[in-house]
């Protein structure tokens, strides 16, 4: 039979030339664990790390990017991520610095605006907050925000670049990369699993 078979969802961490793309190494396993725990989505047991400059990145419906350092695409990276979003893929970029005055935020916003368009506040009643778990107040706050780290702000909204009527690029200043960067086995110590919003992001990227 010609053509490719549908494969299990593989969580993809995007590797970009500038900055520390690998600053949250256990986050993928944690979200994979959550997807398996709460949903019936067929998911691969380990994540993939794919250079954004490679066309292979187009095979993944959701690409996660994070870091603390300057965030700049090379021309090849910019071309591929633009193509990914145009073809229906989704980028999830999280500021590991949780600081809107930080270098990651400034450079990432500049790159997003240059590659796509200026991100806008995502309404807190957007479908991504209710496509699996319900988050009535919008994006869940992280312990880093509540503890006054970084810019000492609780960010009320995520930002997004829309591709038609769906999210093409989701940008977060909330530092989910720190919040979710722990071993999945440690979830049993939490009263409420704080990775549930990660499940929403994945469900949204796969089904909307």
């Amino acid at each position, binding site marked *: 039979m010609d053509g490719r078979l549908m494969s299990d969802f593989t969580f993809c961490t995007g590797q970009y*030339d500038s900055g520390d793309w690998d600053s949250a190494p256990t986050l993928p396993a944690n979200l994979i664990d959550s997807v398996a725990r709460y949903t019936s989505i067929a998911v691969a047991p*380990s994540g993939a790390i794919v250079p954004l400059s490679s066309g292979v990145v187009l095979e993944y419906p959701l690409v996660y990017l994070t870091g603390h350092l300057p965030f*700049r695409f090379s021309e090849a990276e910019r071309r591929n991520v633009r193509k990914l979003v145009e073809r229906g893929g989704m980028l999830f970029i999280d500021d590991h610095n949780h600081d809107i005055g*930080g270098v990651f935020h*400034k450079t990432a916003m500049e790159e997003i605006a240059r590659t796509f368009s200026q991100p806008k506040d995502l309404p807190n009643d957007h479908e991504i907050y209710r*496509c699996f778990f319900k988050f009535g107040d919008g994006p869940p706050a992280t312990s880093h925000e509540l503890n006054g780290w970084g810019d000492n702000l609780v960010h009320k909204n995520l930002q997004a670049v829309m591709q038609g009527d769906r999210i093409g690029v989701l940008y977060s200043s909330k530092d989910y990369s720190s919040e979710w960067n722990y071993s999945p086995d440690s979830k049993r110590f939490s009263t409420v699993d704080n990775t549930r919003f990660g499940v929403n992001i994945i469900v949204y990227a796969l089904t909307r």
Partner: protein
Amino acid sequence: MTALERVRGSQRLLGAAAVTQALAWGVATTLAIVAVMSFLALAIPRLRDDSTLTEIVALVFGIAVAGALLWRSRHLTSTSRVALWIEERIPELHYSLVTAVEQGESPFKDSQTGSPFGQGLENAVAGQDVGRVTLTALRRGVLAAVAGLVVAALLLYVSPSSAFGRAGTRPRFSPFGTASGVPAASRLEDIQVQITPPAYAGGRTTTLDDPSSVAALTGSSVAIRGKGSATGLTASGSTRISEAGGRWTISLLMPAKPAALTLRDRTFERIIVLDPRADAPPKIALASSLRDTTLRTPRLVVHLNAIVSDDIGLDAGHFEYLITTGSGEIFKARTITTPVVQFNGSRSASMSATLDIASLKLGEGDLVSMRAIAQDGNTLSGPGVATSDTRTIRIARADEYDSLAIDAAAPQPIDSSATSQRMLILMTEQLVREQPKLLREELVKRATEIGELEERIRRRVHEILTENPEEIVAEQPGDSAATIEQMEAPEEITGAKNPDLVAAYNALWQAVRSLRIAEPAPALPPMRIALAALDRARLANRLYLRGAPPKIIVDLKRVRLTGKEKGNSNTRTPRSFADSTRVRLSARFNAALDLIEKQPARAMTELALMRVEALPSLPDFAAALGQATDAIRAGRDATLPLLRARRALDGPPVVTPGLPQWTGG
């Protein structure tokens, strides 16, 4: 002339009159409908496109009217009905004609004597002018029919319809007066287009003769001029048409996106495709330095050189240095820019700078990101800004002088579902204490159970050592344990990087063997050795190489659907199909080709509109369409450009090597 001959003469006259009236009213109906529809088309442009339908409808109605009138006159075929019709108009005949028709001959005779019977009646008929009376009776109806035909023809003549082979005469009767500058032919032919590029581009004004499309830089001034007055001319959108020196003129700015300018002169229409050429942003590349680097000490003089080019003209450029300091979760950044270099509108240039790293007073772990930035001279929609790829210089930390950047890694996830080694030791110690009191069967049963649990830990350690994820998934609680023969021998563990785990594995192997032969006491020493080794491994510092984070395998079968919280996947919004311009244009292209013979004007309009849509995404197809419309307008054969358009739309033909496989029909 006998009475019967007179009746037949009147019958012929009546028949001819009936046919004449039917034809006249039928034709008049057809003409009137065409005229009325052409007036309505002024208000409803869609009717103009369906002129063939209008003609068919008018013809059907005309035939229907004529047919109905002929049907109403069907009694004229009966001679007795005609005789009665005459008798009705000349009562003095006293049914002489009817009697003659009933007898079937004239002059009629007595059937018994053979003598002329109705000579008196014949004389009475001869005394009346039946022909004149018939003509008089018919005149009104025929004249009315002819009058109706003339009125309908006049209505059609003054209508905007082109039924008379030229434009209608409506403008002559319009409130704008006699419209002396309005020629009978279209004023949309032989136009001239003058293009003046925006001032910042510094280009020359060019003139195009009778083009079907206008390609120019976005923001260019476009002046379209044609012969005749502007009266009655319209253009799409809010485009104004002015008049000077007996010529009409349209002035507009080239839009940012392709557009179709539709011009209308009475029933004539022309579409001009506006094909904007965007001012591309500059291109910039760092010629030096070529790669990132890490310095042990912050002492280096970096020579930066960038090559810049632009399609119109460059304005200025500079280098930017972004210095990031900090570590962990706290970083600070500052930006330094070099003095701006002016390019004065040149299309290509280079710029250079020298950066003394020592002057930046960098510390360990600091990062310098360098890039070049340039902008063009677009003052209309710009400026277009370009940035080069970024080069980074990093100052190494003192503790990473082994040349590799290493950071502490998170501990490997531990399978918490396995009973801990410490618990197994406690269970074994209890079994050893109770051993004297137990029957052999009970001892074997309990030792085997502990052995199976120990075996799970042994296999887990084996999996970590050999990094074989498949076995993690394969093994589940309740699976039959491996037999002693199936257990991997300790010497099979080769190339393992963690000596503590190897020691633990070897000890576990011995412990499992003892427990499976129901000898718990000898199993205890290796179990304790394994526990100590596992603790050492657990507490060890873990390091990983930057760029190669640990690969963590999630035990999906164990985790699957164990979450206590419930999510609800709400009704999914169906994702709309990606809008494929190519597929949509392909369907429209086929429809336009079907129209070329039947409705060439409409086909031309459709091809021009398709070209506008194709310009941004399918430039080859748009170019071929432009050639096709030019050829059709000039009366040339458009087959080749249409074929090129088809090829551009569908791609090259698919070549199948050999004959296709027979599929049984």
